[in-house]
């Protein structure tokens, strides 16, 4: 607990951060679980928003992940992990942009060749499936490079949250 705080690399300084709990400690990895903050926190419905499908507990448990055990963490500790901003954008482009592009391309090609709505619809579905397969390969490549792995940034003092400023430092 008393070791010095790790120094973040310049790339990590602008990282997209999140608070996680340590739920299990193994020999080489620690298992982390995100704090229950699925909603944006921007309005009075913060407690209910985004809970529609499946229970919140199940959703959070599904997002449990492992991190290399390098900081002597203990079960129950809260830490901040982060990913590079560019990695988040890359991940979003691969997961959503690629399948969407292939689906739209499929629909457009079918419209030109067959000039029918049903053919466009079928081609869009095929394009979407093809895009998912391509996205899978691209995600694997990104994962192999280690771009998607979250990194330990710092320990969280009790009571701290990551809710960012919503606009302006209060002046006089």
């Amino acid at each position: 607990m008393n070791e010095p705080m790790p120094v973040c690399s310049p790339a990590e300084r602008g990282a997209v951060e999140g608070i996680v709990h340590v739920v299990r400690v193994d020999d080489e990895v620690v298992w982390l679980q995100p704090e229950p903050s699925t909603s944006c926190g921007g309005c009075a419905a913060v407690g209910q928003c985004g809970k529609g499908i499946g229970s919140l507990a199940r959703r959070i448990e599904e997002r449990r992940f492992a991190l290399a055990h390098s900081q002597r963490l203990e079960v129950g500790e809260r830490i901040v992990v982060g990913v590079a901003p560019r990695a988040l954008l890359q991940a979003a482009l691969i997961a959503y942009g690629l399948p969407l592009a292939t689906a739209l391309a499929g629909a457009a090609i079918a419209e030109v060749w067959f000039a029918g709505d049903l053919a466009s619809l079928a081609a869009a579905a095929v394009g979407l499936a093809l895009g998912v397969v391509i996205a899978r390969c691209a995600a694997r490549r990104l994962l192999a490079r280690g771009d998607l792995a979250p990194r330990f940034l710092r320990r969280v003092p009790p009571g701290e949250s990551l809710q960012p400023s919503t606009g302006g430092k209060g002046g006089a």
Partner: protein
Amino acid sequence: MKEYALMMIGAALVNNVILARFLGLCSFMGVTTRIDTAAGMGLATTFVITVSSMADWAVQNYLLAPFGLGFLRTVTFILVIASAVQFTELTVRKVSPSLFQMLGIYLPLITTNCAVLGVALLLVESRLSFLASALFAFASSLGYSLVMVIFAGLRERLALATVPRLFAGPPIGFIVASLLAMAFMGFSGISTG
């Protein structure tokens, strides 16, 4: 081709989902504290709006309209949108658990995003072909993402500024949003056919 291009410009800029139709304001104010998260949310929403609009178009034209079930449209569309979000979540999780770890946070928010339902209902009124519907939905969601990223950039700058205490927080956010809406009104002079 020209008609499609004009329709897309109109959907993205002139009749912007957020600033002209006032849809999706919850995520507009809630997820725009950082450019990266706004871009992630924008891309996720773009995917869901486009895919669910394609599915809604099929349901409307091959199920609801032929059998005279138009009164079930809203309920059916909500079901289709929820299914699209669930499908997206399952697919991302299967395709790459790492991507799911990173992006899963945005998906539950989209279920309750009225912009998704709003675009689907607008498409029914427009009576467009399948490709035109898909492109309209894609352009509308691109406009949504564009405004999200612009507003997030403004709020990142705003977080460093000193504003009167009375306006600090959401009030100055709303004032900036109104100025952005006025700026987008400049696009209304563009003729989109």
